[in-house]
């Protein structure tokens, strides 16, 4: 249920005058306007003002900005595309990772596997259990 007050009716009335949908229905707005002199006094000049605009156009000033822009384009780098970086960077990065994986000594795996498992557990719990323990310790709740 929408709250009807003068302000919301006025906003809705102007939206309807613009041919737009409004949170209040046309009939609801018209009924309110029929009974509320203050709203009519507010809306009527605004509707007239809307019609005033029809005889105006935006000024589009003539200009020739290209020479000064061209001069300054020389100082700036060409447009940088992240796609180009990704196109060359991603395969190189993947290749480097694969090389590391296959050349890694068993000792590295013994360190990496627990880290990967820990990350997986954190992701699963959606929280850092060590951090929670630290907070509990600081508050003295864990020891008790």
């Amino acid at each position: 249920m929408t709250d009807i007050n003068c302000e919301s009716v006025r906003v809705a009335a102007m939206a309807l005058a613009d041919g737009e949908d409004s949170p209040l229905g046309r009939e609801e707005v018209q009924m309110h306007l029929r009974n509320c002199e203050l709203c009519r006094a507010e809306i009527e000049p605004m509707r007239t003002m809307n019609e005033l605009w029809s005889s105006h156009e935006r000024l589009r000033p003539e200009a020739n900005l290209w020479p000064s822009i061209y001069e300054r384009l020389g100082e700036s780098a060409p447009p940088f595309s992240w796609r180009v970086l990704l196109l060359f960077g991603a395969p190189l990065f993947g290749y480097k990772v694969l090389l590391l994986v296959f050349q890694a000594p068993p000792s590295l795996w013994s360190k990496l596997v627990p880290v990967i498992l820990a990350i997986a557990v954190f992701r699963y719990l959606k929280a850092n259990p060590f951090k929670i323990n630290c907070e509990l310790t600081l508050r003295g709740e864990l020891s008790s």
Partner: protein
Amino acid sequence: MDDAVAIKRCKAGERDAFRYLVERYQSEALGHARAILADREDALDAVQEAFLDAYQALGRFDAARQFYPWFYTILRNRCFKMLRGHRKNVEVSLDDALILAPSGEVSPEDRLALEHALVGLSPAERELVTLKHLDGLSYDELAERLELPRGTVMSRLFYARKRLREKLGSSLIRKAKDTIHD
């Protein structure tokens, strides 16, 4: 050449292709910058800087989008950044229009009165009102262009018009009403 071809060539490092975009949109951009800044010189600076920013950012431009709405975001960021830097007292003269184009239908005095009223609004209000009434953007288009929810556009537009009506004064509105009814 069209926008998509020009952008593709710019991305390939052809600086001259950017000329097409500058020449196509500079007048429109100047009109929009003037509406926000209400200052001729600042608008010129803002548009130049915005084109340079756009050139730098073309690599991130999504080819599925249209160029000008994307560029407009860069331009308005430039304008509002510039506004944070300094404030000026704007003088609008009869023969040198700032936001509204001189037209045979409207007397210079009436155009000037509306320009004065517009200059009395805040830059954000002026931007919203002119995009609505001079460019004819719908609420959905305004919401997309200004990156605001549609409901916010609706209420901000109402309050901007309310302020404009106060600035215009009742005499001009009455005059407009008489003209419309004649």
